[in-house]
């Protein structure tokens, strides 16, 4: 083997691309040629330096969002924060917070923060439902199938109301965990957007009018009625979500009266 050949092939040797026979030939040449041996050593050193330096770039979050927004049905996921890892981090933090809250200590120290913490957990639960392929435990557009499904799983019977005629299609129900407690989620679809309606029992029977807040790009509309707290979460516009909660409340009253 000539030095000219060896000096090209040594790169393939370095990259582990040579078959055993050729590798042997190059190694034999290098063993007898100090110049080529020095070349190989130099390139090996350079490769190591390059591997040790972080030469990669990270795609800007805005680019990721733009691409996700261009995908069909991405509307439900577009706001899924810069990265999935960030979401998981946020959720892990939420769980840790819940664990502390369960000891009761947190309730005293951070009382005023309770509401925003719950909102954050509700949004995390919403995100999880979109990402994990676990949107529904029971799939049915029939409220009489979804409602009994919750029996025995929760200490409340969440009102399951079909709003298909009003433009919000019931697609199923799910058991979720928020604030370290099981919570019912009733899942609706508006066009391609998912609405999770979380329902939990509350000690207060006082009626609390609906209000909307925005968290991580999601709209969260919450209200209390008849000893239950409701949170509707979606990426649909705030006025559409308000329409949803109005129709739900109206239908809820009608079914209670009827």
């Amino acid at each position, binding site marked *: 083997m000539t030095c000219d050949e060896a000096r090209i092939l040594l*790169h393939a040797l370095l990259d582990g691309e040579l078959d055993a026979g050729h590798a042997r030939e190059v190694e034999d040449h290098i063993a007898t040629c100090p110049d080529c041996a020095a070349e190989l050593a130099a390139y090996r050193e350079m490769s190591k330096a390059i591997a040790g*330096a972080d030469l990669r770039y990270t795609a800007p979050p805005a680019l990721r969002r733009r691409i996700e927004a*261009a*995908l*069909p049905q991405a509307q439900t996921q577009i706001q899924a924060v810069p990265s999935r890892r960030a979401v998981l981090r946020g959720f892990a933090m939420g769980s840790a917070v819940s664990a502390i809250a369960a000891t009761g200590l947190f309730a005293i120290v951070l009382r005023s923060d309770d509401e925003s913490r719950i909102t954050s957990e509700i949004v995390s639960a919403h995100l999880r439902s979109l990402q994990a392929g676990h949107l529904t435990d029971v799939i049915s557009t029939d409220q009489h199938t979804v409602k009994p499904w919750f029996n025995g799983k929760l200490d409340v019977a969440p009102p399951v109301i079909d709003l298909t005629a009003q433009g919000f299609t019931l697609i199923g129900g799910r058991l979720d965990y928020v604030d370290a407690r099981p919570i019912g989620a009733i899942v609706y679809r508006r066009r391609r957007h998912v609405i999770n309606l979380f329902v939990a029992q509350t000690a207060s029977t006082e009626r609390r009018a609906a209000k909307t807040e925005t968290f991580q790009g999601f709209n969260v509309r919450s209200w209390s009625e008849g000893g239950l707290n409701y949170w509707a979460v979606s990426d649909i516009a705030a006025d559409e979500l308000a329409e949803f909660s109005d129709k739900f409340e109206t239908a809820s009253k009608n079914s209670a009266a009827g």
Partner: protein
Amino acid sequence: MPLKAANDDPDRARRFRDAALPYLDDVYTLARYLLRDAGDAEDAVQECYLRALKHFDSYRGPAMKPWLFAILRNVCHAEFARRASSPTAGIEDVADNAEQTPLWSEAPETPETHVLRERDAGTIRRLVNALAEPFRETFVLREIHNLSYREIADVADVPVGTVMSRLARARAMLRSAWLAEQEPPK
């Protein structure tokens, strides 16, 4: 805007997301080195993903990353063509000339001068970006993305032998530049 008709399948979109989005940083990194401009790279990556989604049905594997790279490369070459009328044209010309120069013309160095001082990432990026296009592309695919020669050959649409010679040439040029950098300033 959501794509229409054939692309308007949520399940397909989800499969595409799961398969292609994990490589976003890889694709963006390659775009940065190919185009050497952050804004152009973003546009190219976005275009690359749109094209990839469009052709996702014809994707047969084996590896998603080289497939995305090949698409990105086409997008970038369209960008080069657009630039060809601008003063920064001639990238390809330079590259062609460079490829014709003898591979091993530089004088052998003494072992002492082979010592390459550690360089920070910013300096190495600058040196890599100074390489002519086909060499830079081959080098980045190998050293940063760890593609095999075969995969690089497929992405760049050249024979494996060309990959090997380009890589040898790229490393030689980079090493010369690297050594030149550490000449003490007089």
